[in-house]
């Protein structure tokens, strides 16, 4: 990986005579072992969902599949490595850059492996005023990690998250797909962490929504078939607005 040269903002010290500082920052995926993604293939369920997804957007706009298919790939393969990005781009198919820019723009795509249980503690203002920051500190201290780190046994990744839309049920944390709300005592937090530690599998990934909306055993939505009309305009996938 080549180093990337970036300019830190000259106003880091807010203007008072600070000069621009040029420094080297490593590539975001430096040091990440993606060998587990050497050979990738979607499960049958994912292939079926991909076929269904193609029927839900107008012809010629397969770019709309980037988010749903990348989300599905993350659920299938655990995290989004450069290999996963290439795989998704070929599966749709769209240029790799289109997938890469989505993978790096949106925060829910994990660009490096995460622990079995992904604990996201909300520390935005509504949670913070009733103890959200203290909750994050407590969880980190209990697991012996700093925010953003994964425990040595790979069981927990803890991060402080921005608003998750549970402001009235604060303090809260998201564990994988599940919201755990109203965590209003240390005893509750202790019990939750103990339960998770004893869990051999990733919890909170609902089998009915394992791959995203519209899937699961016997849950496939009716297909539209070709009824969706693309309209009269001729356009290329790059055709913007």
């Amino acid at each position: 990986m080549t180093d990337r040269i970036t300019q830190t903002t000259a106003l880091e010290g807010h203007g008072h005579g600070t000069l621009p500082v040029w420094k080297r920052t490593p590539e975001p995926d430096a040091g990440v072992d993606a060998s587990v993604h050497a050979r990738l293939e979607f499960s049958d369920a994912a292939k079926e969902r991909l076929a269904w997804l193609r029927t839900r957007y107008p012809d010629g706009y397969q770019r709309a599949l980037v988010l749903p298919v990348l989300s599905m790939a993350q659920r299938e393969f655990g995290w989004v490595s450069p290999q996963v990005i290439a795989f998704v781009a070929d599966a749709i198919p769209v240029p790799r850059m289109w997938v890469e820019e989505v993978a790096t723009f949106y925060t829910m795509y994990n660009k490096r492996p995460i622990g079995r249980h992904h604990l996201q503690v909300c520390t935005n203002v509504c949670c913070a005023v009733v103890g959200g920051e203290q909750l994050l500190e407590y969880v980190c201290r209990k697991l012996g990690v700093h925010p953003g780190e994964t425990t040595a046994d790979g069981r927990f990744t803890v991060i402080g998250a921005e608003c998750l839309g549970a402001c009235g049920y604060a303090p809260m944390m998201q564990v994988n797909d599940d919201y755990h709300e109203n965590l209003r005592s240390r005893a509750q937090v202790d019990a939750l962490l103990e339960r998770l530690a004893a869990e051999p599998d990733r919890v909170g990934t609902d089998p009915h929504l394992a791959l995203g909306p519209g899937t699961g055993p016997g849950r496939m939505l009716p297909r539209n078939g070709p009824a969706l009309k693309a309209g009269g305009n001729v356009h290329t996938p790059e055709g913007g607005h």
Partner: protein
Amino acid sequence: MAYTILDGHKTLLNFPRGAEGTWTLDSYRTRGGYSALEAVLREGRYTPAGLLDQVKKSGLRGRGGAGFPTGLKWSFLAKQRPAYLVCNADESEPGTFKDRVILEENPHQLVEGMILSLFALEAEHGYVYVRGEYVHPQKRLDAAIREAYEAGYLGEDVLGAGRAYHITLHSGAGAYICGEETGLINSLEGRKGQPRLKPPFPAVIGVFNKPTIVNNVETLASVCSIAEFGGEAYAQWRNESGKSTGTKLFSVSGHVERPGVYEVPMGYPFKRLLEEECGGMLNGMPLKALIVGGSSVPVVDAETAMKIDLDYESCAAHGTLLGSGGVIVMGEGTCMVRSLEVLLRFYHHESCGQCTPCREGTGWIHRIVRRVEAGQGTMVDLDELYRIADNMEGKTICTLADAAAWPAKSHLRVFRQEFERHVHEGRCPFGGRFPDPFHLGPQA
């Protein structure tokens, strides 16, 4: 009280709190669900233009935050077909969690509201863009859409009326900016969620290069009541003084005894919402500050807060905005510099990076406030903060920069003394910590 709507009448949360199974089709039907749709499609209660007219008469304004009149927005839709309806369920404004309740507890009302709206707009296909973190709400809505297909409310020939309606649930992946309607459109098309320059407005060129209407979840769910009772009846649901109509969901968080989502008629006094619905302040602490419409609207002090009636006009008269109805209540003991710092961290994090005033400005003002909070700020910093915030406003493609500037300017204006105290004392008078009412932090 002078409400022309009966107190306790609910149009969106029309079921008991905590009731089981309210999200199923059977339960929704027992509450009168889909009767408006059947009356429109089977009995011809309205023509598309007639329903649009009812929405105009109802005075319904967009419930996502901007408060643009819904009927007027719809009337801008270009005639070219196909056209699309997009439901904005990207709810990610701190303090706002009202749409989640509809998605989780009453998803069929959104589905019915969308079908009625598709009818009025003479469009066929609707997309619901739900934020990616809302896995559980997505599951409920997904099941509701499926039930609606099975019951014939969606499909190629809905209720034998010869019209096709489809709804597709599309999940986001974690970006506040996708709540902006053109950012959402870009995201739905599979791009980065960076807002588009306007014009052209989405009503002319929106998603997939076609005319598009983007409405909030609560707005579309409210269309059911308008189709059921008529626009004029809907417009009566308000208090005497208010011009705003209908009922509104308020999601209350922060230092109150019973936080949660409450549906009240427009113009409901904040004092009454706080004291009756929410059971007063948490542990009886005095009120210090109120953010009434989600984190981006100007903050007000306790005295002003108690005078506010919850409608567009009263909020504006008291120097703030109704916004999305995300009511954040802060009691004494909350450091307003710290709370602003947290908010600005959020806006800095969520700036999409397109426009320089926002990309750089959100970072500058965040760092200034962080420095003041740490006791290292100067009086010049306070003026700089105001000046930069002022310069960000109205200079960008979308209103994210404004959404960061408004709280910054209002915090500084309303709680100037507290900022100055940080500077003069060289430390945070509150120890740099938020209140810890549930004792999760280190014990003293």
